[in-house]
C-alpha cells in the first residue's frame, strides 16, 4: 500500500471517529431536551360581548355559524343562515333589550335575487322578518323581551329567504354583509 493511500485511509478513519464522537456528545444533549418548545398563549380571557363588531377577530367565538372571513377590517359576508351568541346587557333581564343588526345589501344581491328577506329567531322566539328590495345600508331592529335575557347569553339565529349560490367567481354561499350585531339596553 502506498503512503498516499495509507494517509487517505487514515483520514477517512479519523473523520469517521470524529463524526461518531460528535454524535455521541450531541445525542445525550438532544435526548435531554424537551420534545417540543412551549408556545406562549394569550390567557387574558375576553369577556363575552353584547355588541359584535364584525371587524374584530376577538368576537369569532360568538359567531356560532354562517359567517365568512373579515373583509376590509370591518365587515363579513354571511351565508343564508347565520347565528350569533350575545351577552344580555346590564339590566336587560328586567327591562328587555333591543336587537340591532347593521347590514348592507350590496347591489349584486339585488341584481341577482331582486329582493331579500331577513328573519330572526332569538332564544326560540321568532322575530318579524324584514324585506329589502333596494341595495343600501340598513339597520334591522327588533325588541327582545326580558324573559329571554335572563341567562349568560342569547342565541340569535338569522335566516335569509334566499342567497347567492356558490359559483366560479366565488365558491362561497353569499347572503348579506353584516357590520355589527348586538343587544342594546333600552
Amino acid at each position, binding site marked *: 500500500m502506498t503512503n498516499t493511500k495509507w494517509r487517505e485511509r487514515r483520514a477517512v478513519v479519523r473523520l469517521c471517529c470524529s463524526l461518531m464522537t460528535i454524535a455521541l456528545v450531541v445525542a445525550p444533549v*438532544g*435526548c435531554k431536551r424537551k420534545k417540543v418548545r412551549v408556545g406562549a*398563549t394569550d390567557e387574558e380571557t375576553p369577556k363575552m360581548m353584547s355588541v359584535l363588531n364584525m371587524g374584530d377577530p376577538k368576537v369569532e*367565538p360568538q359567531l356560532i355559524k354562517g359567517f365568512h372571513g373579515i373583509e376590509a377590517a370591518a365587515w363579513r359576508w354571511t351565508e343564508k343562515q347565520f347565528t350569533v351568541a350575545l351577552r344580555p346587557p346590564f339590566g336587560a333581564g328586567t327591562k328587555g333589550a333591543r336587537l340591532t343588526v347593521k347590514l348592507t345589501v350590496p347591489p349584486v344581491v339585488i341584481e341577482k335575487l331582486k329582493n331579500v328577506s331577513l328573519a330572526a329567531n332569538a332564544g326560540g322566539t321568532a322575530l318579524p322578518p324584514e324585506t329589502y328590495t333596494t341595495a343600501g345600508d340598513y339597520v334591522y331592529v327588533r325588541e327582545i323581551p326580558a324573559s329571554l335575557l335572563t341567562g349568560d347569553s342569547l342565541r340569535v339565529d338569522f335566516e335569509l329567504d334566499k342567497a347567492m349560490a356558490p359559483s366560479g367567481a366565488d365558491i362561497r354561499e353569499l347572503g348579506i354583509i353584516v357590520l355589527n350585531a348586538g343587544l342594546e339596553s333600552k
Partner: protein
Amino acid sequence: MSPLEGGSRPAVRSGKWERAVYWLVPPLLCLALHWRGFTSWFRADDFAWLGTGLYDRNFHDFLVSIFAPQAQGTIRPLSERAFFMLGFSLFGLEALPFKMVVFATEFANLALVASLGARLTGLRWAGFLAAVFWVLNSSGIEPLGWTCVYNQVLCGFFLLGALHFLLRYVETGERRYYWWQWAAFLAGFGALELNVVYPAIAAAYTLLCARRARYFRGTLPLFAVSLAYAALHSAVAPVWKSGGYAMHFTGSLFGTLGTYWTWTVGPTFLFTPYVPPKWALPAGIAVVSAGLLGFAAWKVHAGGRAALFCLAWYLAVLAPVLPLRDHQTEYYVFLPAIGLCWLGGWAAVAGWRAGAGRRMAAVALPALYALMGVPTLLETAQWNHAITMRVRTLVEGVAGIHERHPEKSILLEGVDTDLFWNGVLDRPFRLFGLEHIYLAPGSERRIAAHPDLGNIADYVLPADVTAQALQHEDLVVYDVRGERLRNITATYAALPHEGGLPRRVDVASPLTGYLLGPEWYASDGDHRWMPRRASLRMGAPETPGQKLYLRGVCPEEQLGAGPLPVAVTVDGVALPAAAIRPGAPTFELEFALPGQVAGKAEMRVTVEVGRTFRPASDPRDLGLVFGSFEVR
C-alpha cells in the same frame, strides 16, 4: 460528444474563483430559492413519521417500526423510519436539524448532477447549468420544503451516487468503483421504492455511452436484485386494486406522461401566481420542449448518444409512477427532471458556442423556463412555510396550554381546513404525550371533508360532552385563529350549547365517563379496557336504518382460543351475534339497530364478550379495548 464516446474530457483546469462559482452557486441558489422551505416547520405526514416507534416496547417492535410496510405499502427504513426516529429522539420537534440533513443531501445531489452532467456531455459548464436548471424546477418545493418527502432527495442521492461510481468504473476500469456502485444501489432501497429503476439507468448508460459489452453485462445482476425487491415488495405490501394508488396499465400512461412532461418543463400543476394570457403557458412549454427535443434529435443525429441517455433517465425514473393515473403528484417529476436538466445544460452551452442566433436561444429558452417555474416555486414555498408556521403555533401553543393546565383536556375552536389536515389529523400532540385534544363542536362545518384522508368527526368533541366537561371544569377552550392561542374558556362556557346525548362516544376519553356504566375500567389515556360486560348511554339514531359501529382493539391473547364472540344489546334488545376473528389487531363491528330506538333521546348499549384474559402484568380480567361507539 461525451468523453466516453471519444470526445474530449471536460476541462478541469480552472481558477480558484471559477471552481468556487462552479460548486457553490447551485447550492447557494438552492438555499436562496428554497429559503422558505429551509425555515419551514413540520406538517401533516411529518407527524405520522415523527411518531414512528413512539410506542415500541421491545426490539421486535423496533424492527416492525423500521421495516413493516406503512402508508400505501411503503418500506423506506432510511429516508422515513430511521430518519424521523433518530431525528425525533435527538431533537424532538426542532425542524432545523431535519432541514439541515435534507439540504445537505440536496447539495450533494447538486454536486453529483453537475459532475455527471459535465462527464456525460464533455462540457464542464453544461453540468453546472444542469444543476442550476434543476434548482429552478418548481417540483423541488415539497422535497425541500416538506420533511416527509426527504425520500425523494435521499433516493436521488443514491441513484446519482450509483451512476457516479458506474461512470468512474467505466472511466478508470477500477473494479472498486463497480462495487461502490453496488453499495449505493443497495442502500437506495432504504430510501424509496423508485430505486428499482437504477439497473435500467445503468444499462442505458452502458449501452448508449460506454458501449462495451462487459460494462453492460455488469449491469445484469442489478436487474436480478430489482426484480427480487419488486417480488418481495408485492408479497408483503398491499396491492391497491382501486382508489388513488391503483395502477392502470392502459392508454392513460401516455396522458400521464404528457402531464408530467408539462410539469417538468413548465410549472407543476401548470399553476402560476400571475395571470398570463391563456395561450402563454402552453406556448412557453411548447417552445422549451421544442428546444430540448430539437437539440436531442440534432445531437443523436450527430452521434451524441448521451442525449438519448438523458431522455432515458427521464423516462426510467418516471416510469414507476406513470400507472398511477389517479394520483398525480408534483414531486414525482423531481428526480426525472434531472435527465432533462442535463440535456438543457448541454443545449445551452452548445448553443452559446454556436454563434449569435443560437446564443440568443441559449439565453432565451432558459430564461423562459425560469420565468415559468420560479414564480410558482416561490409562491408555493411561501404557502408551505405559512401553513407550517400556523401548525407550529398550534402545536407549541397546545404544549403551553398543557403546561399551564396539566390536568385538563383541551378544546380547540376555530380550526379551519388547512390547519386541520396539516396540523391535527396526524395527532402531533401525542408526540409529547397529549391524547385529549379535541375540536369544538361544529368545527366540522368549517373543515372541507376528505374521507379518503380521515374522518373529521373522530376529532370533534360532542356538544353534550363539551357542556358537561365545561360544567365540571375539566376542559379549557382556546381560539386558534390569532397569532397566539387565546384562552376563551369563560366566553365559550357562556355560549348556548346544543343538548342531547352524543351519537359518537369516545370511550377512551376521560370526559365521557358520565356516559359509561360502572363496569368499565379507568381510561388508560388513549384507550379504555372493558371487563366481560360493559354498558353505556348514548344518543339514539335520528332515523330508522342507521347503524351502530364499535371500534377498538382485540389483543392477540384474546384470539389465541379462536374467534371472540361479542354480544350487543340496545335497550335490552339483543342485536345479531358477532365475533372478532384473528387477523388485524383493530376491529370494527357493525350492527343494524332496532327500529324502535329511532328518534328516542337516548339508548343504553351493553357489550359482552365470550371470555376474558388476565395478563401476567395486570391483575384485571380484560375483555376488549375501546375505542368508540358511533351511530350513523
